């Protein structure tokens, strides 16, 4: 049903002019429909919690959560924006993103899915009715009764083929015009030829008509198409989710005034303001201000880096403590981010050329169908001495029996079953061929920060400090939004430490916190500023008077990290760790998760180069990473996975996304991809064996419509059951 007919028209006259209505609708839209992606929903409880809470929210008319697509649609009054809903959901503990750009293409996708489903339904009902009549014929109806039944079958089959067969005819026509031969070509020939011969036979009151076989063929093939479509629709909605994320914006300073502009509009020489907590939008040089920069997503370093006047900053770094004014040195196409995106695009187009097992099977099999039928026709013309009707009948019987009903289901049924199971475990497959590529993997490369670890620091030596130092540290740490301070404050609060009274607490941007306690100056911050000897682990230093208390931090291990490494090694994969962080931190983590093969201090380009090198040496690499520095490596790798917390670019470049915090589904996915491929191969063999048995029967002229129907349903059902066997 189209959009126009359901929507209440603003003015009845407009109904005749959809374009005008769309405009009017835009101008005086009474209520807004917001669409949000909520990746963390997974059960009925989530539906009830979210819908109930939003129903109570002022200004929200109704909210409905689609669990299949993990998408929330909210009907809200004009004053309510997506940000309000996102804030509300955050309070409930669900992360949400607004989806905007995707809306139009999403309805197109849904329309396509509904269209396919409608054809499945029509051919299904036609199949049932034709079969009812055919069973009577097989049971022994003869003479005028049989002819009548055949003619009624024809009346049902002709419109069904005309409507439900369209996807095949369209594809075949496009392929034929482009000079290619795909699976739809032989399918269309078989459908049309069988239909025509069957009509001809019924009119001449012949014994055999293949109406039920034609309709059944269309039905099973459409089911395969629909499964395939659903798998790709889920993947596409994931891709939309990524592209629909925030438009990069920057604050430009011109003549003292601040203006929000799109990053695309920035030019070299512009000055932009980067607030604490904001991401640096462009490459540039710091003009004024001092702060610390979190470069973890760009380089994998966990330690924040100090930045002040004259320091070079890169797009993608996060400003932590003080505001910075940055003069743009490279924007748009020249920026380091954009260059990385170009590398990714190049690598991805290389990956596009991957041919799947289904395509290989179809390419090998497709030409043999018409050739076999034609050969049968010629040979029988010779044997029968020019009996056209007999020869055509045998050719049609072999056409309909060779037609790859089960082949059309063999791959989509397994892929749908496998991706459904993985989705329930928290792994979203974005790319249709990813499962197949994953099955070939023999080497797994992990990134450290944000992948094996959570990317959030945890204090490690709280026990080594006197209680008073802890109290002072808590008081100072609570005043800052620096990640180390926040982690320290959180850990101390959890230990029930209470803050002390303190005067003149202030944050010195880029250095740390300062205050006066019991008449002496206390500082918490960088080593050189506090007056301490810097160590090579992540640390914050507390000075009370002259005494120094170093608080060391370590990155928290992601749940299941050690298990996933052990499981992958048990499956015989070699596991590597390549990080941009300092050697001490990487070595420590490698020991904790049980990886012996590690490398530290790798630049983004080196990561990608290492992955390419491994692949050049004949290995198939699975890359698991989350940062901007992993992006190129992710797209170069044979197949890639990134956690949901990863940078947008990294998620966009990877084939699968881990929705939960746990890493364990990665090992499940590797294992399941192997089993899935095995099932696909079994399925292809199964349909091959059916053909090997029944094609000779057809060629010798023994096949009847009953045989064709029997073979077709038996092979399709056994292939589907085999797919469901997947554990």
């Amino acid at each position: 049903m189209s959009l126009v007919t359901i929507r209440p028209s603003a003015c009845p006259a407009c109904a005749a002019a959809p374009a005008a209505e769309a405009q009017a609708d835009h101008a005086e839209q009474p209520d807004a429909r917001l669409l949000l992606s909520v990746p963390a929903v997974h059960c009925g409880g989530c539906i009830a919690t979210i819908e109930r809470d939003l129903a109570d929210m002022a200004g929200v008319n109704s909210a409905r959560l689609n669990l299949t697509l993990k998408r929330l649609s909210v009907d809200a009054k004009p004053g309510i924006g997506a940000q309000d809903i996102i804030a509300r959901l955050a309070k409930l503990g669900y992360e949400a993103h607004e989806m905007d750009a995707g809306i139009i293409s999403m309805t197109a996708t849904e329309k396509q899915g509904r269209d396919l489903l409608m054809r499945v339904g029509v051919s299904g009902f036609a199949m049932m009715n034709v079969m009812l009549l055919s069973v009577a014929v097989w049971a022994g109806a003869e003479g005028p009764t049989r002819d009548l039944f055949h003619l009624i079958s024809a009346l049902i089959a002709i419109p069904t083929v005309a409507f439900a067969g369209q996807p095949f005819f369209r594809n075949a026509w496009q392929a034929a015009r482009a000079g290619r031969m795909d699976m739809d070509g032989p399918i269309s020939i078989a459908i049309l030829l069988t239909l025509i011969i069957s009509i001809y036979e019924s009119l001449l009151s012949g014994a055999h008509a293949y109406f039920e076989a034609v309709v059944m063929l269309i039905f099973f093939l459409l089911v395969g198409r629909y499964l395939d479509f659903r798998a790709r629709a889920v993947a596409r909605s994931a891709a939309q989710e990524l592209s629909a994320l925030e438009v990069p914006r920057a604050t430009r300073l011109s003549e003292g005034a601040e203006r929000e502009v799109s990053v695309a509009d920035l030019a070299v020489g512009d000055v932009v303001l980067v607030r604490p907590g904001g991401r640096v939008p462009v490459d540039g040089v710091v003009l004024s201000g001092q702060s610390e920069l979190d470069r973890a997503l760009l380089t994998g370093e966990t330690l924040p880096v100090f930045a002040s006047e004259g320091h070079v900053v890169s797009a993608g770094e996060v400003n932590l403590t003080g505001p910075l004014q940055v003069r743009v040195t490279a924007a748009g196409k020249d920026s380091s981010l954009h260059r990385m995106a170009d590398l990714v695009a190049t690598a991805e187009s290389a990956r596009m050329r991957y041919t799947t097992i289904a395509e290989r099977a179809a390419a090998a099999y497709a030409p043999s169908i018409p050739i076999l039928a034609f050969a049968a026709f010629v040979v029988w013309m010779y044997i029968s001495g020019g009996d056209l009707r007999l020869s055509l009948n045998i050719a049609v019987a072999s056409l309909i029996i060779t037609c790859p009903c089960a082949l059309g289901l063999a791959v989509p049924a397994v892929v749908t079953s496998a991706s459904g199971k993985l989705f329930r475990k928290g792994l979203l497959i974005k790319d249709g061929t990813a499962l197949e590529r994953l099955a070939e993997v023999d080497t797994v490369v992990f990134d450290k920060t944000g992948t094996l670890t959570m990317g959030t620091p945890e204090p490690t030596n709280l026990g080594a400090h006197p209680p008073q130092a802890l109290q002072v540290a808590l008081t100072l740490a609570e005043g800052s939004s620096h990640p180390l301070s926040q982690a320290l404050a959180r850990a101390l609060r959890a230990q029930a430490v209470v803050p002390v009274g303190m005067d003149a607490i202030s944050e010195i941007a880029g250095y740390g916190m300062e205050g006066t306690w019991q008449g002496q100056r206390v500082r918490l911050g960088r080593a050189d500023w506090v007056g301490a000897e810097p160590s090579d682990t992540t640390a914050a230093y507390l000075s009370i008077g002259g005494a120094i208390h170093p608080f060391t931090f370590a990155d928290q291990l992601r749940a299941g990290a050690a298990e996933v490494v052990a499981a992958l090694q048990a499956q015989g994969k070699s596991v590597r760790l390549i990080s941009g962080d300092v050697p001490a931190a990487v070595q420590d983590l490698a020991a904790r998760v049980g990886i012996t093969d590690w490398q530290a201090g790798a630049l983004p380009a080196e990561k990608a180069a290492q992955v390419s090198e491994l692949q050049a040496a004949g290995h198939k690499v699975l890359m698991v990473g989350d940062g901007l520095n992993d992006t190129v490596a992710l797209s170069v790798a044979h197949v890639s996975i990134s956690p949901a917390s990863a940078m947008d670019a990294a998620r966009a470049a990877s084939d699968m996304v881990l929705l939960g915090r746990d890493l364990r589904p990665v090992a499940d996915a590797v294992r399941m991809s192997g089993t899935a491929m095995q099932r696909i191969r079994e399925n292809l063999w199964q349909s091959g064996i059916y053909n090997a048995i029944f094609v000779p029967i057809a060629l010798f002229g023994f096949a009847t419509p009953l045989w064709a129907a029997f073979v077709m349903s038996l092979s399709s059902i056994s292939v589907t059951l085999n797919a469901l066997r997947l554990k």
Partner: protein
Amino acid sequence: MEVLAILIPVSLFLGLLGLGAFLWTLRKGMYDDPEGDSQRILDPRYDDKPKPVPPEDDPR
């Protein structure tokens, strides 16, 4: 065999009826969220009375 003259139209009519019902459910968007619908049946919120349907609040 005269009974066929009644039975065949009846079976065709029933078939079309089923097809019509299927197309109706399809248009009403009942296959848009199979996962969610299987969970919603356990939701006690509308056990006593059905969810009030806002006028014209037809998804798409």
